[in-house]
Protein backbone atom coordinates (compact mmCIF):
# COMPACT_ATOMS: atom_id res chain seq x y z
CA UNK A 1 0.00 0.00 0.00
CA UNK A 2 1.26 3.41 -0.88
CA UNK A 3 1.91 5.61 2.09
CA UNK A 4 1.68 8.75 0.00
CA UNK A 5 5.18 10.08 0.59
CA UNK A 6 7.53 10.72 -2.30
CA UNK A 7 11.09 9.62 -3.04
CA UNK A 8 13.66 12.09 -4.37
CA UNK A 9 13.18 10.80 -7.93
CA UNK A 10 9.41 11.15 -7.73
CA UNK A 11 9.73 14.71 -6.42
CA UNK A 12 12.07 15.76 -9.20
CA UNK A 13 9.85 14.21 -11.86
CA UNK A 14 6.69 15.78 -10.42
CA UNK A 15 8.34 19.20 -10.44
CA UNK A 16 9.02 18.72 -14.16
CA UNK A 17 5.73 17.25 -15.36
CA UNK A 18 3.50 19.29 -13.06
CA UNK A 19 1.30 16.46 -11.78
CA UNK A 20 1.59 13.65 -9.23
CA UNK A 21 3.31 10.47 -10.38
CA UNK A 22 3.77 6.97 -9.04
CA UNK A 23 6.16 4.17 -10.00
CA UNK A 24 5.19 2.53 -13.27
CA UNK A 25 3.56 5.66 -14.75
CA UNK A 26 4.65 6.53 -18.28
CA UNK A 27 5.55 10.19 -18.52
CA UNK A 28 6.94 12.61 -21.05
CA UNK A 29 9.15 15.09 -19.29
CA UNK A 30 11.06 18.18 -20.33
CA UNK A 31 14.81 17.89 -19.69
CA UNK A 32 17.32 20.42 -18.38
CA UNK A 33 20.27 19.18 -20.36
CA UNK A 34 21.40 16.70 -23.00
CA UNK A 35 24.92 15.45 -23.62
CA UNK A 36 26.65 13.11 -26.07
CA UNK A 37 30.25 11.99 -26.55
CA UNK A 38 32.42 10.95 -29.47
CA UNK A 39 31.21 7.35 -29.00
CA UNK A 40 27.52 8.19 -29.11
CA UNK A 41 27.20 11.57 -30.85
CA UNK A 42 28.06 10.55 -34.43
CA UNK A 43 25.14 8.09 -34.55
CA UNK A 44 22.93 10.59 -32.73
CA UNK A 45 23.67 13.32 -35.27
CA UNK A 46 22.87 10.91 -38.09
CA UNK A 47 19.57 10.01 -36.40
CA UNK A 48 18.83 13.72 -35.74
CA UNK A 49 19.13 14.48 -39.45
CA UNK A 50 17.08 11.41 -40.37
CA UNK A 51 14.31 12.63 -38.03
CA UNK A 52 14.30 15.89 -40.01
CA UNK A 53 15.81 17.64 -37.01
CA UNK A 54 16.59 21.21 -38.03
CA UNK A 55 17.77 22.84 -34.82
CA UNK A 56 18.31 21.64 -31.29
CA UNK A 57 15.58 22.49 -28.77
CA UNK A 58 17.80 24.88 -26.78
CA UNK A 59 21.33 25.92 -27.76
CA UNK A 60 22.42 26.27 -24.14
CA UNK A 61 21.25 22.82 -23.09
CA UNK A 62 22.79 20.55 -25.69
CA UNK A 63 26.45 19.74 -25.19
CA UNK A 64 28.94 17.59 -27.07
CA UNK A 65 32.16 16.26 -25.55
CA UNK A 66 35.24 14.80 -27.21
CA UNK A 67 36.57 12.44 -24.56
CA UNK A 68 36.42 8.74 -25.43
CA UNK A 69 39.15 8.64 -28.08
CA UNK A 70 41.28 11.74 -27.60
CA UNK A 71 43.48 12.71 -29.29
CA UNK A 72 42.09 10.61 -32.14
CA UNK A 73 44.29 7.56 -32.85
CA UNK A 74 43.39 7.34 -36.56
CA UNK A 75 41.73 9.19 -39.44
CA UNK A 76 38.40 7.42 -38.99
CA UNK A 77 37.96 8.77 -35.48
CA UNK A 78 39.44 12.15 -36.41
CA UNK A 79 36.69 12.45 -39.00
CA UNK A 80 33.99 11.59 -36.47
CA UNK A 81 35.38 14.38 -34.28
CA UNK A 82 35.29 16.69 -37.28
CA UNK A 83 31.64 15.83 -37.88
CA UNK A 84 30.83 16.77 -34.29
CA UNK A 85 32.70 20.07 -34.56
CA UNK A 86 30.83 20.98 -37.73
CA UNK A 87 27.48 20.19 -36.10
CA UNK A 88 28.34 22.17 -32.97
CA UNK A 89 29.28 25.17 -35.07
CA UNK A 90 26.16 24.97 -37.23
CA UNK A 91 23.91 24.66 -34.21
CA UNK A 92 25.91 27.13 -32.07
CA UNK A 93 26.13 24.65 -29.21
CA UNK A 94 28.96 23.98 -26.78
CA UNK A 95 31.53 21.37 -27.73
CA UNK A 96 34.23 20.43 -25.24
CA UNK A 97 37.43 19.94 -27.20
CA UNK A 98 40.06 17.24 -26.87
CA UNK A 99 41.71 17.41 -23.47
CA UNK A 100 38.97 19.35 -21.69
CA UNK A 101 37.99 16.22 -19.84
CA UNK A 102 35.54 13.38 -19.42
CA UNK A 103 31.93 14.24 -20.23
CA UNK A 104 30.56 13.65 -16.72
CA UNK A 105 33.32 15.62 -15.07
CA UNK A 106 32.93 18.64 -17.36
CA UNK A 107 29.12 18.63 -17.07
CA UNK A 108 29.48 19.01 -13.29
CA UNK A 109 32.48 21.39 -13.30
CA UNK A 110 30.87 23.73 -15.80
CA UNK A 111 27.49 23.52 -14.09
CA UNK A 112 25.52 22.20 -17.02
CA UNK A 113 23.74 20.06 -14.44
CA UNK A 114 22.43 21.25 -11.11
CA UNK A 115 20.43 19.89 -8.16
CA UNK A 116 16.83 19.08 -9.06
CA UNK A 117 17.55 18.77 -12.80
CA UNK A 118 16.52 16.00 -15.15
CA UNK A 119 19.52 15.35 -17.34
CA UNK A 120 19.85 12.88 -20.22
CA UNK A 121 23.27 11.73 -21.40
CA UNK A 122 24.19 9.36 -24.17
CA UNK A 123 26.52 7.52 -21.85
CA UNK A 124 25.75 4.83 -19.33
CA UNK A 125 27.50 6.62 -16.47
CA UNK A 126 25.18 9.64 -16.67
CA UNK A 127 23.68 8.69 -13.25
CA UNK A 128 26.92 10.20 -11.84
CA UNK A 129 25.00 13.50 -11.51
CA UNK A 130 22.93 11.89 -8.77
CA UNK A 131 25.83 13.12 -6.62
CA UNK A 132 24.35 16.56 -7.21
CA UNK A 133 20.81 15.62 -6.18
CA UNK A 134 19.78 15.45 -9.86
CA UNK A 135 17.79 12.79 -11.74
CA UNK A 136 20.10 11.69 -14.54
CA UNK A 137 19.73 8.76 -16.93
CA UNK A 138 21.84 7.26 -19.66
CA UNK A 139 20.37 6.58 -23.09
CA UNK A 140 21.63 5.50 -26.50
CA UNK A 141 22.17 7.60 -29.59
CA UNK A 142 18.68 7.58 -31.14
CA UNK A 143 16.97 8.47 -27.85
CA UNK A 144 19.52 11.24 -27.48
CA UNK A 145 18.78 12.58 -30.95
CA UNK A 146 15.08 12.62 -30.13
CA UNK A 147 15.74 14.54 -26.92
CA UNK A 148 18.03 17.03 -28.70
CA UNK A 149 15.21 17.72 -31.11
CA UNK A 150 12.18 17.77 -28.78
CA UNK A 151 13.69 18.74 -25.41
CA UNK A 152 11.71 15.86 -23.99
CA UNK A 153 12.02 12.20 -23.16
CA UNK A 154 9.56 9.46 -22.31
CA UNK A 155 10.29 7.54 -19.14
CA UNK A 156 8.67 5.06 -16.88
CA UNK A 157 8.68 6.46 -13.34
CA UNK A 158 11.05 4.05 -11.58
CA UNK A 159 10.51 2.26 -8.32
CA UNK A 160 13.07 3.41 -5.78
CA UNK A 161 15.28 1.36 -3.53
CA UNK A 162 17.16 2.83 -0.61
CA UNK A 163 20.69 1.94 0.47
CA UNK A 164 21.48 3.10 3.98
CA UNK A 165 25.11 3.00 5.10
CA UNK A 166 25.66 3.61 8.78
CA UNK A 167 29.02 4.12 10.43
CA UNK A 168 32.08 6.06 9.30
CA UNK A 169 34.57 4.63 6.83
CA UNK A 170 37.97 3.94 8.34
CA UNK A 171 40.90 6.15 7.37
CA UNK A 172 42.30 4.99 4.02
CA UNK A 173 39.00 3.40 2.99
CA UNK A 174 37.32 5.50 0.30
CA UNK A 175 34.03 6.04 -1.49
CA UNK A 176 35.26 3.62 -4.18
CA UNK A 177 35.71 0.83 -1.65
CA UNK A 178 32.21 1.50 -0.38
CA UNK A 179 30.55 1.50 -3.79
CA UNK A 180 32.47 -1.62 -4.88
CA UNK A 181 31.17 -3.32 -1.76
CA UNK A 182 27.60 -2.24 -2.57
CA UNK A 183 27.88 -3.41 -6.19
CA UNK A 184 29.09 -6.77 -4.87
CA UNK A 185 26.13 -6.97 -2.51
CA UNK A 186 23.42 -5.87 -4.95
CA UNK A 187 25.03 -7.48 -8.06
CA UNK A 188 25.23 -6.22 -11.61
CA UNK A 189 21.48 -6.51 -12.15
CA UNK A 190 20.46 -5.61 -8.59
CA UNK A 191 18.86 -2.27 -9.45
CA UNK A 192 17.72 -2.79 -13.06
CA UNK A 193 14.99 -0.27 -14.00
CA UNK A 194 15.10 1.18 -10.47
CA UNK A 195 16.27 4.42 -8.89
CA UNK A 196 18.64 4.11 -5.96
CA UNK A 197 18.79 6.53 -3.05
CA UNK A 198 21.92 6.53 -0.93
CA UNK A 199 21.56 7.73 2.60
CA UNK A 200 23.29 7.55 5.96
CA UNK A 201 26.29 8.71 7.94
CA UNK A 202 28.85 7.22 5.55
CA UNK A 203 27.72 9.56 2.76
CA UNK A 204 27.07 12.69 4.79
CA UNK A 205 30.69 13.74 5.17
CA UNK A 206 31.56 13.00 1.54
CA UNK A 207 32.89 15.58 -0.89
CA UNK A 208 31.10 16.12 -4.19
CA UNK A 209 33.90 14.14 -5.88
CA UNK A 210 33.35 11.12 -3.61
CA UNK A 211 29.59 11.32 -4.09
CA UNK A 212 30.23 11.23 -7.86
CA UNK A 213 32.21 8.01 -7.39
CA UNK A 214 29.23 6.54 -5.54
CA UNK A 215 26.56 7.60 -8.03
CA UNK A 216 28.83 6.66 -10.97
CA UNK A 217 28.68 2.95 -10.22
CA UNK A 218 24.89 2.90 -10.11
CA UNK A 219 25.45 1.92 -13.75
CA UNK A 220 27.17 -1.27 -12.52
CA UNK A 221 24.01 -2.24 -10.65
CA UNK A 222 21.78 -1.63 -13.67
CA UNK A 223 20.07 1.37 -12.05
CA UNK A 224 18.14 3.92 -14.07
CA UNK A 225 19.47 6.63 -11.80
CA UNK A 226 21.04 6.88 -8.35
CA UNK A 227 20.75 9.87 -6.09
CA UNK A 228 22.83 10.59 -3.01
CA UNK A 229 20.80 12.20 -0.23
CA UNK A 230 21.98 15.84 -0.23
CA UNK A 231 22.51 15.97 3.53
CA UNK A 232 26.00 17.42 3.97
CA UNK A 233 26.43 18.29 0.27
CA UNK A 234 28.33 21.55 -0.12
CA UNK A 235 28.42 23.31 -3.48
CA UNK A 236 29.96 26.58 -4.70
CA UNK A 237 26.48 27.99 -5.25
CA UNK A 238 23.17 28.08 -3.39
CA UNK A 239 20.66 25.35 -4.09
CA UNK A 240 17.43 23.91 -2.75
CA UNK A 241 18.16 20.38 -1.54
CA UNK A 242 15.50 17.77 -2.31
CA UNK A 243 15.00 15.20 0.44
CA UNK A 244 12.67 12.21 0.34
CA UNK A 245 9.51 12.30 2.43
CA UNK A 246 9.66 10.34 5.68
CA UNK A 247 6.83 8.12 4.47
CA UNK A 248 8.17 7.64 0.94
CA UNK A 249 7.67 4.19 -0.56
CA UNK A 250 10.71 2.07 -1.33
CA UNK A 251 10.59 -1.26 -3.06
CA UNK A 252 13.42 -2.37 -0.80
CA UNK A 253 15.66 -0.88 1.86
CA UNK A 254 19.16 -2.24 2.32
CA UNK A 255 21.10 -1.41 5.48
CA UNK A 256 24.82 -1.78 5.95
CA UNK A 257 27.20 -0.95 8.77
CA UNK A 258 30.37 0.10 6.97
CA UNK A 259 32.58 1.07 9.92
CA UNK A 260 34.73 -2.06 9.55
CA UNK A 261 34.88 -2.13 5.75
CA UNK A 262 38.35 -2.93 4.38
CA UNK A 263 39.59 -1.96 0.91
CA UNK A 264 37.64 -3.81 -1.80
CA UNK A 265 38.63 -5.38 -5.10
CA UNK A 266 36.42 -6.39 -8.04
CA UNK A 267 37.96 -9.40 -9.74
CA UNK A 268 37.67 -10.00 -13.49
CA UNK A 269 35.50 -10.17 -15.48
CA UNK A 270 32.66 -8.35 -13.70
CA UNK A 271 32.38 -5.32 -11.42
CA UNK A 272 30.21 -7.34 -9.03
CA UNK A 273 32.84 -10.01 -8.33
CA UNK A 274 33.84 -8.04 -5.27
CA UNK A 275 36.08 -9.34 -2.50
CA UNK A 276 37.83 -7.99 0.56
CA UNK A 277 41.37 -7.09 -0.39
CA UNK A 278 42.72 -9.73 1.98
CA UNK A 279 41.40 -12.41 -0.42
CA UNK A 280 43.25 -11.10 -3.50
CA UNK A 281 46.34 -9.55 -1.91
CA UNK A 282 49.54 -10.76 -3.51
CA UNK A 283 48.14 -11.17 -7.06
CA UNK A 284 50.91 -9.99 -9.43
CA UNK A 285 50.11 -6.98 -11.61
CA UNK A 286 51.73 -5.59 -14.78
CA UNK A 287 49.89 -2.36 -15.20
CA UNK A 288 48.22 0.20 -12.91
CA UNK A 289 45.74 2.80 -14.12
CA UNK A 290 44.12 5.76 -12.37
CA UNK A 291 41.55 7.89 -14.13
CA UNK A 292 37.97 7.74 -15.50
CA UNK A 293 34.69 9.35 -14.52
CA UNK A 294 34.75 7.08 -11.48
CA UNK A 295 38.12 8.01 -9.97
CA UNK A 296 40.11 10.52 -12.02
CA UNK A 297 39.49 13.58 -9.84
CA UNK A 298 41.92 15.63 -7.74
CA UNK A 299 41.18 13.79 -4.49
CA UNK A 300 41.88 10.50 -6.26
CA UNK A 301 45.25 11.69 -7.57
CA UNK A 302 46.03 13.08 -4.12
CA UNK A 303 45.21 9.74 -2.49
CA UNK A 304 47.63 8.04 -4.90
CA UNK A 305 50.31 10.69 -4.29
CA UNK A 306 50.02 10.21 -0.56
CA UNK A 307 50.84 6.51 -0.96
CA UNK A 308 53.68 7.19 -3.42
CA UNK A 309 55.36 10.26 -1.94
CA UNK A 310 59.13 9.90 -2.17
CA UNK A 311 58.87 6.32 -3.49
CA UNK A 312 59.30 4.58 -6.87
CA UNK A 313 56.91 2.10 -8.41
CA UNK A 314 58.16 -1.46 -8.90
CA UNK A 315 60.43 -2.08 -11.89
CA UNK A 316 58.52 -3.70 -14.72
CA UNK A 317 55.18 -2.16 -13.71
CA UNK A 318 53.71 0.60 -15.85
CA UNK A 319 51.52 3.25 -14.34
CA UNK A 320 49.16 5.45 -16.37
CA UNK A 321 47.15 8.39 -15.13
CA UNK A 322 44.42 10.13 -17.13
CA UNK A 323 43.08 13.13 -15.16
CA UNK A 324 39.30 13.50 -15.36
CA UNK A 325 39.57 17.04 -16.71
CA UNK A 326 41.93 19.84 -17.62
CA UNK A 327 41.14 21.63 -14.39
CA UNK A 328 41.95 18.44 -12.44
CA UNK A 329 45.27 18.37 -14.26
CA UNK A 330 45.96 22.02 -13.45
CA UNK A 331 45.01 21.63 -9.80
CA UNK A 332 47.19 18.54 -9.48
CA UNK A 333 50.02 20.49 -11.08
CA UNK A 334 49.63 23.47 -8.79
CA UNK A 335 49.55 21.54 -5.53
CA UNK A 336 52.50 19.29 -6.36
CA UNK A 337 50.47 16.09 -6.70
CA UNK A 338 51.49 15.66 -10.30
CA UNK A 339 55.18 16.03 -9.53
CA UNK A 340 54.95 13.37 -6.82
CA UNK A 341 53.19 10.98 -9.18
CA UNK A 342 55.55 11.53 -12.10
CA UNK A 343 58.61 11.18 -9.88
CA UNK A 344 57.14 7.92 -8.59
CA UNK A 345 57.02 6.64 -12.17
CA UNK A 346 53.58 7.59 -13.55
CA UNK A 347 52.91 8.58 -17.16
CA UNK A 348 50.29 11.26 -17.64
CA UNK A 349 47.79 10.95 -20.50
CA UNK A 350 45.54 13.65 -22.02
CA UNK A 351 42.50 14.28 -19.79
CA UNK A 352 39.68 12.09 -21.06
CA UNK A 353 38.59 8.47 -20.89
CA UNK A 354 42.13 7.26 -21.66
CA UNK A 355 42.58 3.48 -21.56
CA UNK A 356 39.18 2.88 -19.89
CA UNK A 357 37.32 1.68 -22.95
CA UNK A 358 40.05 0.04 -25.02
CA UNK A 359 39.94 2.30 -28.04
CA UNK A 360 43.57 3.35 -27.78
CA UNK A 361 46.15 4.46 -25.23
CA UNK A 362 47.44 1.79 -22.93
CA UNK A 363 45.85 -1.42 -24.18
CA UNK A 364 47.13 -4.33 -22.03
CA UNK A 365 48.97 -7.30 -23.58
CA UNK A 366 47.95 -10.97 -23.49
CA UNK A 367 47.86 -12.53 -20.01
CA UNK A 368 48.68 -9.20 -18.44
CA UNK A 369 47.00 -8.16 -15.22
CA UNK A 370 45.73 -4.63 -14.74
CA UNK A 371 44.71 -2.93 -11.52
CA UNK A 372 42.46 -0.03 -12.38
CA UNK A 373 40.53 2.71 -10.62
CA UNK A 374 37.81 2.49 -13.33
CA UNK A 375 34.28 1.17 -12.98
CA UNK A 376 34.25 -1.73 -15.47
CA UNK A 377 36.37 -4.83 -15.93
CA UNK A 378 34.37 -6.82 -18.45
CA UNK A 379 36.33 -9.14 -20.72
CA UNK A 380 37.97 -7.06 -23.45
CA UNK A 381 37.04 -3.80 -21.78
CA UNK A 382 40.49 -2.24 -22.15
CA UNK A 383 40.90 -3.52 -25.70
CA UNK A 384 42.33 -7.01 -25.14
CA UNK A 385 40.10 -9.96 -24.21
CA UNK A 386 43.18 -11.91 -23.08
CA UNK A 387 44.00 -9.57 -20.22
CA UNK A 388 42.49 -9.42 -16.72
CA UNK A 389 41.32 -6.28 -14.96
CA UNK A 390 40.94 -5.82 -11.21
CA UNK A 391 39.05 -2.74 -9.99
CA UNK A 392 40.06 -0.88 -6.85
CA UNK A 393 40.29 2.50 -5.15
CA UNK A 394 43.06 4.89 -6.26
CA UNK A 395 45.07 4.33 -3.04
CA UNK A 396 45.01 0.56 -3.65
CA UNK A 397 46.05 1.04 -7.29
CA UNK A 398 48.98 3.20 -6.16
CA UNK A 399 50.04 0.75 -3.42
CA UNK A 400 49.90 -2.09 -5.95
CA UNK A 401 52.02 -0.15 -8.47
CA UNK A 402 54.58 0.23 -5.70
CA UNK A 403 54.88 -3.47 -4.90
CA UNK A 404 53.91 -5.08 -8.22
CA UNK A 405 51.13 -7.04 -6.57
CA UNK A 406 47.69 -6.25 -5.22
CA UNK A 407 48.43 -4.48 -1.96
CA UNK A 408 46.42 -2.93 0.84
CA UNK A 409 47.50 0.74 1.00
CA UNK A 410 47.58 0.41 4.79
CA UNK A 411 50.62 -1.90 4.43
CA UNK A 412 52.98 0.34 2.44
Amino acid at each position, binding site marked *: MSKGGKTISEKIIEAHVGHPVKPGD*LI*ITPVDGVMAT*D*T*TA*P*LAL*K*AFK*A*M*NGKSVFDKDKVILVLD*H*AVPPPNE*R*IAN*LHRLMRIFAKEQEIKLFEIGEGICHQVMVEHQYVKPGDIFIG*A*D*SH*TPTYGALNAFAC*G*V*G*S*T*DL*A*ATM*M*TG*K*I*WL*KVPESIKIVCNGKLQAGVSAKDLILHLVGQLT*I*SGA*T*YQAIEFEGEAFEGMTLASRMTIANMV*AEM*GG*KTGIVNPKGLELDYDYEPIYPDKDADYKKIFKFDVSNLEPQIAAPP*SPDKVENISTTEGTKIDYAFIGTCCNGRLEDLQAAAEVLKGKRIKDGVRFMIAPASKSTLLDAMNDGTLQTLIEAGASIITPGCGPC*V*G*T*HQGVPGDDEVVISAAN*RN*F*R*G*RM*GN*PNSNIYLAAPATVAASALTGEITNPKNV
Partner: protein
Amino acid sequence: MVYVYGNNIDTDRIIPGKYTKTLDLSTLADHVLEDLDPSFSKNVQVGDIIVAGENFGCGSSREQAPIAIKQSGVSVVIAEDFARIFFRNAINIGLPVLEIGKHDIQIGAEIKYDLKSGEVHDLTANKKYTAVKLPQIMIDILEEGGLVAYLKKNKTYNLS
Protein backbone atom coordinates in the same frame (compact mmCIF):
# COMPACT_ATOMS: atom_id res chain seq x y z
CA MET B 1 19.50 -21.55 -35.72
CA VAL B 2 19.13 -20.65 -32.05
CA TYR B 3 22.19 -19.45 -30.15
CA VAL B 4 21.92 -19.66 -26.36
CA TYR B 5 24.07 -17.60 -24.01
CA GLY B 6 24.09 -17.05 -20.24
CA ASN B 7 23.39 -14.21 -17.82
CA ASN B 8 24.80 -10.67 -17.85
CA ILE B 9 26.11 -10.62 -21.43
CA ASP B 10 27.61 -7.12 -21.40
CA THR B 11 27.91 -4.69 -24.29
CA ASP B 12 31.72 -5.05 -24.32
CA ARG B 13 31.17 -8.67 -25.30
CA ILE B 14 28.41 -7.82 -27.77
CA ILE B 15 30.62 -5.30 -29.57
CA PRO B 16 34.01 -4.27 -28.11
CA GLY B 17 34.47 -0.50 -27.63
CA LYS B 18 37.35 -0.42 -30.11
CA TYR B 19 34.98 -1.18 -33.01
CA THR B 20 32.24 1.28 -32.08
CA LYS B 21 33.78 4.44 -33.48
CA THR B 22 32.40 4.25 -36.98
CA LEU B 23 29.39 5.24 -39.03
CA ASP B 24 29.93 2.32 -41.38
CA LEU B 25 27.45 0.14 -39.54
CA SER B 26 27.92 -2.93 -41.72
CA THR B 27 31.42 -3.38 -40.23
CA LEU B 28 29.88 -3.94 -36.78
CA ALA B 29 28.48 -7.32 -37.83
CA ASP B 30 32.03 -8.62 -38.47
CA HIS B 31 32.82 -8.31 -34.75
CA VAL B 32 29.50 -9.04 -33.09
CA LEU B 33 29.92 -11.21 -29.95
CA GLU B 34 33.60 -11.60 -30.85
CA ASP B 35 34.94 -12.00 -27.30
CA LEU B 36 32.09 -14.31 -26.27
CA ASP B 37 31.70 -16.63 -29.26
CA PRO B 38 34.40 -15.99 -31.88
CA SER B 39 32.71 -18.15 -34.52
CA PHE B 40 29.32 -16.42 -34.22
CA SER B 41 29.87 -13.74 -36.85
CA LYS B 42 31.03 -16.33 -39.40
CA ASN B 43 28.16 -18.73 -38.82
CA VAL B 44 25.18 -16.48 -38.21
CA GLN B 45 22.44 -16.54 -40.86
CA VAL B 46 19.60 -14.18 -41.55
CA GLY B 47 16.67 -15.11 -39.30
CA ASP B 48 18.76 -16.71 -36.53
CA ILE B 49 17.73 -16.17 -32.93
CA ILE B 50 19.73 -15.21 -29.85
CA VAL B 51 18.42 -16.54 -26.53
CA ALA B 52 19.99 -15.36 -23.28
CA GLY B 53 19.57 -15.33 -19.53
CA GLU B 54 19.18 -12.31 -17.29
CA ASN B 55 20.33 -8.73 -17.83
CA PHE B 56 21.27 -9.07 -21.51
CA GLY B 57 23.11 -5.99 -22.78
CA CYS B 58 24.32 -4.61 -19.46
CA GLY B 59 27.16 -2.09 -19.41
CA SER B 60 27.63 0.73 -21.84
CA SER B 61 24.95 2.80 -23.59
CA ARG B 62 26.44 2.05 -27.01
CA GLU B 63 23.65 1.67 -29.51
CA GLN B 64 26.22 -0.09 -31.67
CA ALA B 65 25.41 -3.22 -29.61
CA PRO B 66 21.84 -3.80 -30.83
CA ILE B 67 22.84 -2.43 -34.26
CA ALA B 68 25.63 -5.03 -34.53
CA ILE B 69 23.14 -7.78 -33.69
CA LYS B 70 20.60 -6.45 -36.17
CA GLN B 71 23.26 -6.06 -38.87
CA SER B 72 24.29 -9.70 -38.37
CA GLY B 73 20.84 -10.79 -39.52
CA VAL B 74 19.53 -11.96 -36.15
CA SER B 75 15.75 -11.60 -36.16
CA VAL B 76 15.00 -11.41 -32.45
CA VAL B 77 16.73 -11.50 -29.07
CA ILE B 78 14.83 -13.48 -26.44
CA ALA B 79 16.07 -13.13 -22.86
CA GLU B 80 14.92 -13.58 -19.28
CA ASP B 81 15.31 -9.82 -19.00
CA PHE B 82 17.36 -6.98 -20.48
CA ALA B 83 19.47 -4.10 -19.24
CA ARG B 84 17.46 -0.90 -19.48
CA ILE B 85 19.46 1.12 -22.01
CA PHE B 86 20.00 -1.87 -24.31
CA PHE B 87 16.26 -2.55 -24.29
CA ARG B 88 15.37 1.03 -25.24
CA ASN B 89 18.08 1.12 -27.90
CA ALA B 90 16.88 -2.13 -29.45
CA ILE B 91 13.32 -0.87 -29.77
CA ASN B 92 14.53 2.50 -31.06
CA ILE B 93 16.53 0.94 -33.89
CA GLY B 94 13.92 -1.71 -34.65
CA LEU B 95 15.59 -4.86 -33.27
CA PRO B 96 12.81 -7.00 -31.77
CA VAL B 97 13.41 -8.08 -28.17
CA LEU B 98 11.25 -10.38 -26.05
CA GLU B 99 11.52 -10.60 -22.28
CA ILE B 100 10.18 -13.98 -21.19
CA GLY B 101 11.46 -14.56 -17.63
CA LYS B 102 13.05 -17.84 -16.50
CA HIS B 103 13.32 -20.38 -19.29
CA ASP B 104 15.24 -23.53 -20.15
CA ILE B 105 15.65 -23.12 -23.90
CA GLN B 106 18.67 -25.16 -25.07
CA ILE B 107 21.17 -24.58 -27.88
CA GLY B 108 19.76 -25.66 -31.22
CA ALA B 109 16.15 -25.67 -30.03
CA GLU B 110 13.54 -25.05 -32.67
CA ILE B 111 11.67 -21.88 -31.81
CA LYS B 112 8.62 -20.12 -33.11
CA TYR B 113 7.69 -16.66 -31.91
CA ASP B 114 5.10 -14.03 -32.54
CA LEU B 115 6.04 -10.43 -31.91
CA LYS B 116 2.47 -9.19 -31.65
CA SER B 117 1.26 -11.65 -29.02
CA GLY B 118 4.73 -12.04 -27.46
CA GLU B 119 4.32 -15.79 -27.56
CA VAL B 120 7.50 -17.88 -27.74
CA HIS B 121 7.12 -21.59 -28.43
CA ASP B 122 10.05 -23.95 -27.82
CA LEU B 123 9.00 -26.75 -30.18
CA THR B 124 11.88 -29.01 -29.13
CA ALA B 125 10.90 -29.03 -25.45
CA ASN B 126 7.26 -28.31 -26.23
CA LYS B 127 7.11 -25.37 -23.85
CA LYS B 128 5.45 -22.01 -24.24
CA TYR B 129 6.45 -18.65 -22.83
CA THR B 130 4.77 -15.25 -23.00
CA ALA B 131 6.83 -12.08 -23.18
CA VAL B 132 6.23 -9.10 -20.89
CA LYS B 133 3.98 -6.59 -22.64
CA LEU B 134 5.71 -3.43 -23.88
CA PRO B 135 4.55 0.01 -22.78
CA GLN B 136 2.24 1.52 -25.42
CA ILE B 137 4.78 4.12 -26.53
CA MET B 138 7.28 1.37 -27.35
CA ILE B 139 4.64 -0.48 -29.35
CA ASP B 140 3.96 2.76 -31.24
CA ILE B 141 7.68 3.23 -31.91
CA LEU B 142 8.11 -0.38 -33.07
CA GLU B 143 5.07 -0.11 -35.32
CA GLU B 144 6.58 2.89 -37.05
CA GLY B 145 9.79 0.89 -37.57
CA GLY B 146 11.88 2.69 -34.94
CA LEU B 147 12.24 6.02 -33.22
CA VAL B 148 13.63 7.88 -36.26
CA ALA B 149 10.55 7.07 -38.32
CA TYR B 150 8.27 7.73 -35.34
CA LEU B 151 9.63 11.24 -34.81
CA LYS B 152 9.85 12.01 -38.48
CA LYS B 153 6.13 11.41 -38.59
CA ASN B 154 4.98 12.79 -35.22
CA LYS B 155 7.59 15.55 -34.64
CA THR B 156 7.30 14.93 -30.89
CA TYR B 157 6.27 12.23 -28.41
CA ASN B 158 2.65 11.39 -27.83
CA LEU B 159 1.23 9.22 -25.10
CA SER B 160 -1.71 7.54 -26.76
